[in-house]
């Protein structure tokens, strides 16, 4: 009897344990596991949105790729209204693309690697066209981020300064999806070579051009086949693949994404929310997505909230056109009426170049008083400090084409392209050859892309000095040989990664 009851007790006890003992998994409800999250069309698109959204960051197109690079080059002059971009404008050591640019760019690339990894496995409920389009978008974005990182932290293949330098290679290039912490910690990638970086970028763009042919998501705020071709054209120029640059530019030009504008249309293009020339632009759709009164592009370039009433003080106007730019367009301040204290009584004298009308005088309530400002970004999205940011405009393709033709030895065609472009901007033709022709093409590029973040890299890819002596004093010359041409790699990354060498001089 006793024995029986002991056995019975143990039996029930054992049963009890089996009933209660259970799986210890607990799922979070406000976040989702990495292992399963991307396996749905809606989540996959949301994951891509995050990467698009990173382009909006202060460290990327939100400001630095546009304004900081122009401050480094000879496009802008810092006003010291808020103190921002002054050190960068003076090319002070370490005043360069910041650690955040590196961090944000690589975070985007690793997010894309996770997306590409999922696409390879398939997405539940998505058809092949969708998967192809997403892969195209992801590859376009990966190419864009890699390209932006490599052009900031490394020399550009067309002009590599090498004298006596150990490592001036490319940048680390993580291309594999990393989900596990221990692997991430061990993943101490060295620099790839420049050639490896560029061939990866070109490969991604080539894939994107094909994959994006049937993309349902609309350009220019999402990647398109045409945008990939346009970016490829720019990348090929940087890489010295002149033929590839030419054919990609032609492909981009023949697409229906973006229009070529001239005359008044060109001006109104800069006043519309979505720039008609945009082949790819970063969308700022909500006030919460704007960088606001301190660091948005509008605030950086202008002290005004609107050009119709210059007396309302807006942003900081931290970076204004340099005297070189003022000179392009014959800009000087002009008082229209009285009293002089009324900002609306002021405008500028300007030449016949249609682009001269993108400049006017601003508000006088900041430290540097009334200055001539660029008004490309002026809150066009219906709220203050909200401007979509064109990354590639179709006009660039004309200039890319001229430049590529020049290098292919087809100077006449190059000259024709240049003069055709000039006529779109309301200025007369030139007749030049050889180096003078190339210089003129690059000058036109300078004029066209003032405050669009091209100039610093155009100087860099031709090995040219940054010369601001005309307005910042006799020391304001950064030779191409100077280490300040390259940005410092974040110190943390160099310290933690035994395979990574810091750039020279830092």
């Amino acid at each position, binding site marked *: 009897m006793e024995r029986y009851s*002991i056995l019975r*007790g143990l039996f029930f006890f054992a049963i009890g344990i*089996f009933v209660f003992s259970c799986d210890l998994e607990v799922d979070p409800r*406000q976040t989702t596991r990495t292992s399963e999250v991307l396996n749905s069309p809606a989540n996959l698109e949301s994951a891509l949105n995050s990467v698009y959204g990173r382009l909006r960051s202060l460290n990327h197109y939100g400001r630095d790729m546009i304004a900081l690079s122009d401050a480094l080059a000879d496009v802008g002059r810092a006003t010291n209204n808020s103190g921002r971009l002054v050190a960068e404008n003076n090319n002070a050591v370490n005043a360069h693309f910041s650690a955040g640019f590196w961090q944000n760019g690589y975070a985007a690339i690793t997010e894309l690697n996770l997306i590409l990894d999922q696409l390879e496995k398939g997405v539940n409920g998505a058809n092949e066209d969708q998967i192809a389009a997403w892969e195209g978008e992801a590859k376009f974005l990966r190419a864009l981020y890699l390209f932006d990182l490599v052009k900031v932290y490394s020399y550009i293949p067309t002009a590599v300064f090498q004298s006596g330098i150990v490592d001036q290679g490319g940048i680390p290039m993580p291309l594999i999806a*990393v989900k596990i912490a221990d692997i991430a910690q061990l993943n101490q990638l060295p620099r790839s070579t420049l050639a490896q970086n560029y061939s990866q970028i070109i490969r991604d763009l080539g894939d994107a051009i094909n994959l994006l042919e049937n993309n349902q998501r609309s350009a220019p705020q999402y990647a398109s086949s045409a945008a990939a071709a346009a970016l490829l054209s720019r990348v090929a120029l940087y890489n010295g693949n002149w033929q590839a640059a030419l054919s990609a530019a032609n492909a981009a030009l023949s697409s229906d994404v973006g229009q070529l504008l001239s005359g008044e249309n060109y001006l109104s293009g800069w006043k519309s929310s979505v720039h008609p020339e945009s082949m790819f632009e970063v969308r700022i759709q909500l006030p919460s997505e704007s960088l606001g009164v301190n660091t948005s592009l509008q605030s950086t370039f202008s002290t005004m909230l609107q050009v119709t009433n210059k007396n309302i003080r807006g942003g900081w106007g931290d970076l204004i056109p340099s005297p070189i730019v003022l000179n392009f367009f014959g800009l000087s301040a002009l008082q229209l009426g009285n009293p002089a204290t009324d900002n609306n009584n002021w405008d500028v004298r300007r030449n016949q170049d249609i682009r001269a009308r993108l400049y006017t005088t601003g508000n006088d309530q900041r430290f540097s008083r009334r200055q001539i400002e660029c008004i490309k970004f002026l809150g066009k999205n219906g709220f203050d400090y909200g401007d979509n940011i064109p990354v590639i405009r179709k006009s660039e393709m004309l200039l890319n084409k001229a430049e590529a033709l020049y290098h292919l030895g087809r100077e006449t065609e190059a000259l024709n392209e240049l003069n055709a472009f000039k006529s779109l901007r309301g200025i007369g033709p030139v007749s030049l050859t050889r180096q003078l022709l190339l210089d003129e093409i690059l000058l036109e590029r300078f004029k066209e892309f003032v405050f669009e973040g091209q100039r610093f890299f155009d100087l860099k890819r031709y090995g040219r000095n940054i010369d601001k002596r005309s307005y910042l004093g006799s020391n304001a010359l950064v030779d191409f040989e100077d280490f300040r041409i390259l940005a410092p790699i974040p110190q943390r990354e160099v310290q933690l990664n035994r395979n990574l060498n810091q750039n020279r001089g830092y």
Partner: protein
Amino acid sequence: MKIFLSLSTCLLLLSTIPVFAQSRIVRGQVFSKKDNQPISGASIILKGTTVGTASDLYGRYVLQVNLDEFTLVYSYIGHQTEEVFFGVENTMDVYLSPLQEAIEEEVEVEKVLAKEEEVEDPEIILQKDGARTKSPGDLIENIPYQSFDRTLQGRVPGLSVKAASGIPGGAINARIRGVGSIYAGNEPLYVVDGVLINNVSYSIFTQSNPLAFLNPNEIESVEVLKDAASTAIYGNQGANGVIIITTRKGKPGKARIELNAYAGETIPIKFLDLLDGPEWYAMRRDAFKNSDATNPEARALSNMGVLPDNWNQLSPAQLDELGLNLPTYDWQRQMMRKSMMHNYELSASGGGKTTLYYISGSYHYSGSSFPPVDFERGTLRASLSQSIKERVRLEANVNLASIDQAVPFSTEGSFIGSPAFAASTILRHNPIFNEDGSFNTQIGGLAGQNIALVNEFNSGQTSTRSGGGNFIVNWKIASNLNYKGLAGVDYRDLEEFRFRDPRTPDGQEVNGRNGVGNYSVKRYMTNHTLDWTKKIDKSLISAYIGYEFLTEEREGLSSEATGITTPSFNNLLPGSTLVSSDTVWAGYKRQGAFIGLNYQLAEKYLFHLGSRVDGSSRFGSNFRYGIFPFVKLGWNLAKEDFLIASGKVSDLRLRASWGLAGNDQIGDFRALGMYGPGNTYAGGTGIRPISFDNPNLRWETNETINLGLDFGFITGKISGSIDVFQRKTKDLILNIPVLWINRADQFLRNVGGLENRGIEFEINTINMERGIFSWYSSFNFSYIQNKVTSLYDGLQVDPDNPRWAVGMPVGNPAFPGQLAPGSWYVAEYAGVNPATGRPMWYDANRNLTYLPTDADRVYFGSNFPPYFGGFNNVIKIKSFELTTFFTYEYGAVVSDGQYNFLRENGTRFTFNSLHEVNDRAWRVPGDMTDIPRNFALNSGNAARNQNRNFGSASLLKADFIRLAQVNIAYNFSSEFLQNIGLSQARIYAQGINLWTISDYPGYDPEFMGVGTGQIPVHKSYNIGIQLSF
């Protein structure tokens, strides 16, 4: 699953063990209610027979009874006889109530001692074999604290307890044997009647201590388990020690009704000695003079907001006269006041052979130094135990509590609207009220709000509704095989609101601001054990096996709105504009199985071995389960012949133990790779990865070696114990950096090591027992040395936080969920330059510098006191009883945010200053002091100094000795009571925290956290009465 297969194999093995005769071994301890001391020589007789035994020197008894159910009669001279019915329970501690016949008692004591020596065949008793301290609930009875954790301060060696602030029912910081973790939490495990309790506050607006759900007077006993060998049975969380609470239960016998009430008041311990209006003016004027500023008088008046418009027509002398005749108002006494405290309890208990019951209700209210901060609680409690047939007993315990805490603008932080911040920083020339009695709103100085107005108009409340309890099945499967199953619930719901009135500066701009929050914690657990005991000759073997499962879910909702339409209604009205709205959800599960074997030979040699296997959902998939084995050895030397022969030593036991215990307090979901909200784009939502999969994240393990010695002398006048321990934290979790090229910053990994070593000492003495006079003392002392033993990658200093360094203490985190702060790592302050009055520090080469850099930092100890303890004295004269209890702490180094603001002496902000600081300030060349000269303009040499509070200048020693409790009680004589139908009556007067010996310059050395704007600990007086029918 694997472990459960092996577990069931063990079960099968066990089932082959032969069955034994039907007899029961019951055991327990007999105490006197008079002084909570064990009674030796109490007789324990099986009712209706002559079978029985006597309790030993420690009040312990063991009796073998060949019956299924029986009643034992406990009697002792001078005490009322108690009858206890035994159904399924095999252990029973009994408290005998004294009769008031002191003289007779003394005689009997001697008799009993004689009797003790005659005992030939000592019964086998389960010996103490680990580092554990048990105290009966009576010791902490009627101490007017809101939660039992605070009452343990200074009472238990190895357990450091500190109130985080003076908020009644606020957070209490309890650390058993030091700080053993940086990232994984340091909270002890609280077990109330077998239910593991969640002790995290979760309140957004104040500190709401979850342990306040239990009226401390409902506690029968508190047991603190310290070494890993003792806590191993609790496996998870056991790493930080375990505090086991047993609540009062019904006892057999006639119904007993108890009424307990006390009332009193809370009083601020200290008012700071602040400058008055003219003094502040003079101080500030001189500061401007020292800075060679023009118009120092006008500038000082301007700082105070009282510069007349025509000031430039007045001479410096006239301005001076104005400043030196400014009025002074006592803002501190306006804000810090006495408050009420009262407590009422009623309980009924009793039972018969099959049913035991205990029901009670209580109400408690306590204010604080800073009204309206208060605490109001009502509790209902029921405990029911029912025997069914012969072998089964069912038991249920239910505790319901409702708590309301009033919340001012803020209970912490340097907010000008925070009463405890502004009361001392506001400049005192500002009137509190206008002449018509309305609040003055023109306040000069940076603390530019009328804090009395802010406090009056704002409102807020945190309400806690908690329900907890258990259902227990005891099933005697065979005479020596018991099953116990427990299902428990710990439920808590917090509802909070906070209102910024539009009439206050913070509510004005937005026309009122309303914050509302709701948070609920649901915890369910179950625990099943099988327990087998066998006596063979002189040895006792017992074995047990068990399983435990726990699941917890927490969810919260909070929102904030502005634009409140009807301010006079103040609370909970929806605002017109929703500012924010947020939800949270988290949860986790744990399960564990344990097995143990206990063997005692001839009461001399003890051997206890066991292990627990635990899994927690918080860890990575590869290492979810941890194994925590333990071994305990004991040698009772007192039972050896040579010591028995000496006749002097009654107790001498050596204990040694080794064990592992685990810690999973890392927060939920830390091992999961997850996607969370990311950037929105072009009208679409965004998600992004926020963490890596961390499958190798595993238990942080504490390995404790404990050596202990218990001693007692035959005279019974001295007893005590000493424990030496080494508690090593292995697999210490630290944040490991990840390259940005791999996306995230860092992740948690088990890499480092930490060590706590210490000694604990406790001694209890009977100093005198003569006639009507007796005097008992108990003293305890703990020393704990805490240090980091390793980080990762051979690093000596953690790059994330250089305050964590190898060889240095790791500091004590103030609240659950915070990281251990590390040691102080700052430049050493060298006082002021006697020639110039500028502050100086030592640089790395011990040279003096005005501008120390990061490289000049050195380590300065931590906020955890290495030395602490308590000293209790009970003196009885006839029916009077005097208890005095001191606690002490030594060696903690703290930085007190509130004092730091005052120490600036108005140089950075126009805040008030302390006499103590201002009087010490450097004035003339040659002055040797630590307070720099008063300076007003941040230019010249002054600008080339570090801030005067920089480095170790702001570190304070938080040493103190405190008279934590003094109590004078009178017990009425039983003859008198019987005439009026009472069985017991006691009246008493009590004071709490009456006297603090400390040279601490701030409000109070007892606080946790930054110290800024915190409600300081208060003192209190109360009188009370206890009646039993």
